């Protein structure tokens, strides 16, 4: 399996198939990040597409090519925020939760528990979000995640363990 760095370099050399692989690899994580903020699948899909297009257009500016996934998640959140501004009826999850989460819960694309889980996950550092999403959303083995991220298996295992510990703590603080 090619690493993010290898794929990014291939894209920069003009290999369109390499970018399709990156989209395939991260579409779930990007869509989930957008969905958490927009709470609307259609809008999340638009934001995710925007994020991939924006990432492609700015790919030359990415210095650490191993960090493509984490960088992409930042872009996805920005795109979702931008879309939520353009469509005022969509409010970021945190704001909605503070306002009247109970009253709108039925309309949400996510139920309350997964939504709060997603909020906790999103508050982790980007590289930890990325490894957890690859591991549990896409069921990638640790070895594959190591190849994708260009880290050693030991480093990825540590990142996952640390991320789970941090997530557990966050959920404990939120009474989950």
């Amino acid at each position, binding site marked *: 399996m090619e690493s993010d760095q290898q794929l990014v370099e291939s894209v920069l050399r003009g290999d369109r198939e390499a970018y399709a692989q990156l989209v395939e690899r991260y579409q779930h994580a990007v869509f989930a990040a957008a969905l958490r903020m927009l709470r609307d699948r259609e809008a999340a899909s638009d934001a995710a597409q925007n994020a991939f297009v924006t990432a492609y257009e700015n790919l030359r500016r990415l210095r650490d090519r191993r960090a493509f996934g984490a960088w992409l998640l930042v872009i996805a959140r920005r795109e979702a925020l931008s879309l939520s501004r353009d469509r005022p009826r969509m409010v970021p999850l945190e704001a909605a939760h503070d306002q009247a989460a109970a009253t709108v819960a039925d309309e949400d694309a*996510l139920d309350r528990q997964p939504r709060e*889980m997603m909020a906790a996950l999103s508050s982790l550092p980007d590289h930890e979000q990325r490894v957890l999403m690859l591991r549990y959303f896409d069921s990638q083995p640790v070895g594959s995640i190591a190849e994708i991220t260009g880290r050693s298996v030991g480093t990825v295992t540590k990142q996952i363990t640390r991320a789970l510990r941090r997530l557990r703590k966050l959920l404990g603080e939120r009474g989950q």
Partner: protein
Amino acid sequence: MMDHHLEERLRQLGKATEAPESLVGGVMQRIEESAGWGKSGRHGIPWGRSGHRRAAIVAVAACIAGLAIATPVLRNPAPRHAVLVHPWSGPLEPANLSPTLAEYQHAMVQSPEALDALLQQRPAQDVHGAPVGAELKAADVFRSDLTLYE
């Protein structure tokens, strides 16, 4: 919360946040439409705003460098004629300036007065505006030598 319970909740969250359909087709189509992939000769990767900005900066820098090089040349244009270069004092005078060396030789043969008259015609400054005193002095010495032998 046990780790396996947390992991299970993450997997459930993964299922709940799956995109309704693959984004690959839509994304690639949009990129091809917006970037004209394969048509640009830069392997389809667009310059983007930063690329255009960088190109503009390079163009401005090239203009400034060109002006910096051209300005001294315009201020002190090189002489259009050949210049006699003295080994110690540098460029002295245009080679086609009258009187010529042949005229000096001719005057020298004629009389000291003729040579003196020619020396009076010499320009007081060289092409760069510097006095040519040293050369005049040398000529004077030469003239005095002639006088001595008379």
